[in-house]
């Protein structure tokens, strides 16, 4: 039984690595399709033909495709994404600079979204069949159907420009630069700048856990043991919170792991609206500015995070739900 889980996890890990390798390969060929010259960023009156050739050689663009591919894979394994065309500096450095900002924004928003979602889901389930439930569902669907940037801009107009309660862009006030991540996280200024983007993102993200929690609750409440509990005289409140909510939480936990991965990829929009210096904004400006090594690196990191979290979600599920381990053992994964 326990061995089954470990075999399952090992197999799943190999699969994740395979998936990553395929994504890496797709990424390589995708970026070889890029239009424009990688030298676009270099153009000035001053460039001679030889200098251009030297640059092409410097970035290894003159070598045959398969050599470029192997070099690329080799470098990737060592965590080397090459130099950014635009910043003339290692891509890894650029990404490590902004990755924390993306993680803070994503994790905080998800945390808030899942708290609201779980509580809201239980609440709606307890009001099943009422207009409150219907209204709650419609509101939640509205938050998921409205374009994020549109909501973000309207919130900006209200809270930043009309009421002037909150700052509108970046992670810090004029003149403030954080020397370390700890200093950043302990600064009130930083959290003030976090508020608006976090709220906008959480507004969008809370729908999934809320609807999930609600339907899980309804399902659990339908089980025989709940009916038995009712007959045995347990209070509705006890059954709701202690029994049903607990059992309905499992899928939410795994959904959370998946959610982190997906929202990191989807943060592109929010980061652009609020000028948040994160991975998504870096990716967009790298693509728009033909900085292919940087765009490729940012893309790859997002993909790694997603694959990793998908893996964790599966493992978590298999550990929490014993049926998975045994069934996979039976099928000899």
């Amino acid at each position, binding site marked *: 039984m326990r061995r089954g889980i470990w075999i399952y996890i090992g197999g799943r890990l190999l699969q994740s690595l395979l998936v990553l390798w395929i994504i890496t390969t797709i990424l390589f060929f995708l970026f070889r399709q890029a*239009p424009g010259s990688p030298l676009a960023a270099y153009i000035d009156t001053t460039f001679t033909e030889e200098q251009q050739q030297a640059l092409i050689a410097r970035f290894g663009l003159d070598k045959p495709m398969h050599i470029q591919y192997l070099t690329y894979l080799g470098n990737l394994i060592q965590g080397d994404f090459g130099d950014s065309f635009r910043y003339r500096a290692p891509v890894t450095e650029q990404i490590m600079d902004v990755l924390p900002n993306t993680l803070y924004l994503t994790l905080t928003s998800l945390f808030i979204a899942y708290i609201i979602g779980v509580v809201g889901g239980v609440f709606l389930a307890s009001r099943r069949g009422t207009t409150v439930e219907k209204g709650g569902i419609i509101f939640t669907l509205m938050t998921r159907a409205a*374009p994020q940037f549109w909501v973000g801009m309207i919130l900006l107009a209200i809270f930043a420009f009309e009421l002037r309660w909150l700052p509108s862009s970046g992670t810090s006030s004029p003149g403030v630069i954080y020397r370390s991540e700890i200093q950043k996280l302990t600064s009130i200024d930083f959290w003030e700048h976090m508020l608006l983007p976090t709220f906008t993102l959480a507004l969008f993200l809370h729908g999934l856990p809320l609807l999930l929690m609600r339907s899980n609750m309804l399902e659990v409440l339908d089980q025989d043991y709940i009916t038995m509990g009712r007959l045995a005289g347990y209070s509705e409140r006890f059954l709701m919170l202690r029994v049903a909510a607990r059992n309905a939480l499992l899928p939410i936990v795994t*959904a959370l792991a998946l959610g982190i991965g997906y929202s990191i990829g989807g943060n592109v*929009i929010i980061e652009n609206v609020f000028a948040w210096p994160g991975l998504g904004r870096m990716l967009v400006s790298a693509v728009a500015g033909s900085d292919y090594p940087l765009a490729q690196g940012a893309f790859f990191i997002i993909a790694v995070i*997603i694959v990793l979290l*998908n893996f964790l979600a599966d493992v978590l599920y298999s550990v929490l739900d014993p049926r998975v381990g045994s069934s996979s053992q039976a099928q000899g994964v």
Partner: protein
Amino acid sequence: MQHEIKVNEITGITDAKVLSGGSLLTNFLRTNAEVFKRDRLALTGLIILVFFALIAIFAPVIAPRGPFEVIEADGFWLSNEKPSTDYLLGTTNLGRDIFSQLIYGSRVALLVGFSAALAVAVIGTIVGLIAGFYGGWVDTILMRLADVAFGIPFLPFIIVLVAFLTPSIWIIVLAMAMLLWRDTSRVIRSQVLVVKEQAFVSAGKVSGASNLRIIFLYIAPSILPLSALYGSLAIGWAILTEASVSFLGFSDPDVVSWGFMLQDAFNSQALSRGAYYWIIPPGLAIMLTVMSGFFISRGYEEVLFPRLRKH
């Protein structure tokens, strides 16, 4: 074989469940009728969609002007007009009629929405059917492909693709088709695993029907409502995605979509001008069409998973 976690982002379904029997296409149609008869929200969604579809079809009749037509007066462009009887929603900063753009925008939204939904549903269903029915190495490879699609970040992938190819709404549809089949195919696959063990399928096999016949005549009809469910979700995602890509400035410059309108409005500082007549309508239009897709998918859910409806 692994355990897949299937999370439907909108409905909160965590696993596909066994459907009641029935194997013919009529069953599918009956299910559809049932969806809209039973569920008021689904019906509302359908009505909204039909409403926008009518607007899209009759756009040239309804819209007083072309979407890019510049309104001139005495050699000057009539820019930043407030809403009036002549210009129902005012004009843009470059003298275009906002109401006309809104009307024409419905065409792109529905075109992107429906074609992406169709592509996602068709590819996802076929992949799911084949993987589930044949099993073995075919299943393994297709599901690993689905893993790959799951690992590729959705919006960044579309942005890169649109930036590298000529900007066009079809690239967005293509990119969505390339990635979003994953959700549909997984759910369909596990549904097929269940259905193919059922008596009527075995009966078909015994009577010597070919595999394709079994797949398309025996199994497919019973999983079509699931395809429809995922298709109707994809309508919303497609419209939102098109809007996001337009907002980031990667859209087809010759096509007026609601996303393009919002991008244009923000880039022309409509907020600072207080031109809410320019900002609110396209956003509302997007929200309404996307919600109609969600409503319809909920309708399917309630019919497919009747437990949720009991209470």
